[in-house]
């Protein structure tokens, strides 16, 4: 499900960027400034990985931030970070449910 093209095929997903945890740019779809997003996503993810370690929360798998209008969902998988930009923000919970659903539905 974290496949970039599958994610972006959802109508609520406006764009997506994939990076590594160091912020290295791996790919983007429908996003004009993928490299900048990759840097932020990598930094944010690695910082929260560190926070999780300090708190004993285990492995970071997903993080999101949102406003009333839009949201961003970052999925950490196999050493990569996939940042997806969603509109409207209300789609975030639906997308997360899709990600949580058994893989046979994907």
């Amino acid at each position, binding site marked *: 499900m974290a496949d970039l093209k599958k994610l972006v095929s959802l109508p609520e997903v406006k764009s997506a960027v994939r990076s590594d945890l160091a912020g290295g740019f791996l790919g983007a779809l429908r996003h004009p400034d993928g490299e900048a*997003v990759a840097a*932020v*996503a990598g*930094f*944010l993810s690695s*910082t*929260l990985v*560190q*926070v*999780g370690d*300090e*708190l*004993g*929360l*285990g*492995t*970071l*798998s*997903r*993080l*999101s*931030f*949102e*406003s*009333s*209008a*839009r949201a*961003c969902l970052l999925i950490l998988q196999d050493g990569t970070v996939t940042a997806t930009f969603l509109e409207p923000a209300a789609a975030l919970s639906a997308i997360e449910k899709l990600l949580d659903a058994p893989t046979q539905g994907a």
Partner: protein
Amino acid sequence: MEAILQAVLDIPGVSAALVLDGAGRLLGQRGRALYDRALCEQLGTSLIKAIDAVHLQQEDWESMSARYTDGKLLVRNLGTLAGSTHVLVVIADATLNPSFATVSIRVAANKLKKVLGGGGASSLTSSVASTSAPASSPALAASSRPGSTAGLASSSVAWSQPSSVGLSRIAVADPASAALLARAAKELARHVGPMSKVYVEEGVRRVCPDAPFSLASAARLIDDLAGQIKVVSKRTEFRKAFERE
């Protein structure tokens, strides 16, 4: 603030609740034994870095959620003050019911916004005045609306409810300045009684006639207020209360 954080801590699955300012300083904290104050303070710097990154990506962000294998980290934006974002951070274990928690945390965040923004500052001010641990519950002021830093210089910034005589009309530059004013009113009240808030307001007008009160003017304000105390020994006692800081 402590009562609000305690209400968050009472949500099943929540291990700790804390409020951080834009510099990562801990303004309030409630947590289970493992998540003590020292750990939360240590956490502040890293969390603020993450929040800065979120802000860089999406300036109008309102909430953030991080899911780990053994728990969750939830952050709510409490508004911007003097250019820095204040946040409510909730640390939870895997048993947290996200739907239930979201509502409760939103309620808590709204209450905290009122406290930080002045809407509920009278209760905070009184709690500061009655506690001996101001570091854990500083009085905060100024607008809590995201992106409203320009409003800080405005006299419309509320520091406390209108029922708090005098202080409601004082504009402050940052939370630390507001906390100092609360302390000044409290200390002065020991010597001059309930008129202390009026004296503080008048003192701020004299010391900072054209700008929000800030810590840069603290020494002049304390000097000014000390002048309201006629008994020399009490005046000295008042000054000493602020020299300890």
